[in-house]
């Protein structure tokens, strides 16, 4: 995020200078820029901006009787958004994604901290282990949880041998949070690791030398200086969690529990594209606010 703004800022004066020598040079550099930027820009315009504009425009139209869109302006989609039925789902998704983010932070911070203290060779091994799950298909890994946690699954049969259970682990909000934390924990650990690794260990020693206990050193020195990593990690976990529909679908029992499922159902089952778009807009609005907060905190750090 910050890097793109920084490189943008340095690129601007350079391009102005390169334009100075004359038309031909300017024209050549513009063509060159287009060649390099072209594919990326085309990708963004065709696959992101146009669909986004379409989705946003649907929010003010009525749904057709048999699906589709009737181009007749209306505000009813937004009033419907305020219906407690849907508002609850949005708030519920916010809650589940926030819980998953907080748990991932509480688990991820000590993990990243320990990895950063390891000898060089072990650091690499630990980091590879952290990203190793990404080498297996996401769906397979989620199904593995079902196998583990289901009624006759591995966990219950082990507990059964000890004379406990069987318990119903699957298909509740706890399972969804477990799935979210499990899936996105590496995205928390990596930015945290990068931030902690960058921290000069002498700052911690200086703090101890000035009389601070380890806990005080953490609160006053380590945490504030790794805060950008914390914010980035939280965003990396929260964003895919908030709009997720696969994990609640598979581990949450298939009900429309999270806003991601709701949007999917509006488009594919209820065939109400305008309302689906409105829900998508609400989701986007929350994420944009979060990104703005992150950009603001990164600039302050």
């Amino acid at each position, binding site marked *: 995020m910050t890097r793109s703004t920084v490189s943008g800022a340095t690129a601007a004066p350079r391009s102005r200078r390169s334009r100075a020598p004359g038309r031909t040079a300017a024209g050549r550099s513009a063509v060159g820029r287009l060649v390099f930027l072209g594919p990326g820009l085309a990708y963004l315009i065709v696959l992101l901006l146009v669909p986004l504009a379409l989705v946003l425009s649907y929010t003010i139209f009525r749904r057709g009787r048999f699906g589709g869109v009737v181009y007749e302006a209306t505000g009813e989609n937004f009033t419907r958004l305020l219906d407690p039925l849907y508002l609850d789902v949005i708030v519920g998704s916010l809650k589940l994604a926030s819980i998953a983010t907080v748990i991932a932070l509480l688990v991820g911070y000590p993990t990243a901290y320990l990895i950063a203290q390891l000898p060089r060779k072990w650091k690499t091994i630990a980091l590879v282990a952290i990203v190793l799950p990404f080498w297996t298909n996401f769906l397979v890994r989620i199904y593995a949880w079902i196998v583990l946690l289901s009624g006759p699954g591995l966990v219950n049969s082990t507990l059964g041998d000890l004379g406990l259970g069987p318990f119903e682990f699957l298909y509740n909000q706890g399972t969804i949070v477990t799935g979210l934390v499990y899936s996105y924990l590496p995205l928390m650990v990596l930015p945290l690791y990068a931030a902690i690794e960058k921290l000069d260990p*002498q*700052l911690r*020693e*200086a703090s101890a*030398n*000035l*009389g601070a206990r380890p806990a005080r050193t953490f609160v006053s020195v380590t945490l504030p200086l790794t805060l950008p990593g914390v914010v980035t990690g939280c965003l990396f976990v929260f964003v895919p969690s908030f709009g997720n529909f696969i994990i609640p679908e598979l581990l949450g029992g298939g009900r429309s529990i999270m806003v991601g499922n709701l949007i999917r159902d509006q488009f594919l089952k209820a065939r109400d594209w305008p309302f689906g778009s409105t829900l998508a807009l609400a989701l986007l609005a929350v994420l944009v606010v979060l990104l703005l907060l992150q950009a603001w905190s990164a600039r302050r750090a």
Partner: protein
Amino acid sequence: MLQITGVSRRFGDVTALADVSLEIRQGEFFALLGPSGCGKTTLLRILAGFESPDSGTVTLDGADLLGQAAHRRPVNLMFQSYALFPHMTVAKNVAYGLERERLSKAEIRDRVGEVLAKVGLEQMAGRRPQQLSGGQRQRVALARAIVKRPRLLLLDEPLSALDKKVRAEMQLELKRLQHEVGITFVVVTHDQEEAMSLADRIAVFNAGRVEQVDEPVALYERPRTPFTAGFVGASNLFAGRACSAGLAADGLGVLPGVSDLPDGTPALLAVRPERLRLDGEQGQGVLRGEVADVSFYGGVSHVSVAVPGRAEPVLVATPGATQVRAGTRVALSWAPGDGALVPQ
């Protein structure tokens, strides 16, 4: 006051400290002098509690220091790289140690103001470390360490990042501060001039060992080991055996010096360049040779003289500019009292 006894520390197959014993007195300005990598920082880190020795003991005022956690020791360290907190202002950095003592806000404010005035940084109180020059950062680091009024202040190469002029100013300032606050200072340096000008006593380190502990003048005039003779100030060293008149040098005859060594002991004779007298060819001389090179340094000139029978030229320092030119044949002499014999 601080008693270091038999401290050793190894890192793998590197011996950073080998059986180091030192006694540092109350209110003293003590310097640890030695080349890079000889274990000076390691010793300070042991005193501050970031490193533990493999063996040995350290006591401060008779109480064991090594058993105490780093944050409880009445010892403050000024880091070689300053280690200022980048997310805090200058005032916050300095106040950090006092806040840990749970002092009242008013007292903290007074003491921070006082110490910033002492190092001349009152105007910078609200700045972040990144907005300061190297010399200013160094003064913040110093202020942060002395504001705690520790029993013992450790300074790791405090002036090494500064240019020559600022450095000289800061040396004076350190000395003045030490008089004012009355804290025991232990300063680490690899610059022998700095050690000489600042310290009451100097310990010369070499490869993890203490070579000699002495006052600056004694260290300069009576080095006790070949390393000290070579490292502290420039010296002309002659190898040979001790005899009653000084040194029977290999291939150069008897050279004058004061010896308390038994005759026949293998020894080095150290003569300081500024103690050598340069005469014309006809003059009296202990050694004769030909001028190889003359360099003018403003206050002094260095004349190097090639002496037959000796591989390295003999260095002579004479005040002001000199008339001799390269190629002139000269005679060299010195008083017996200016030749120090060092057992080899």
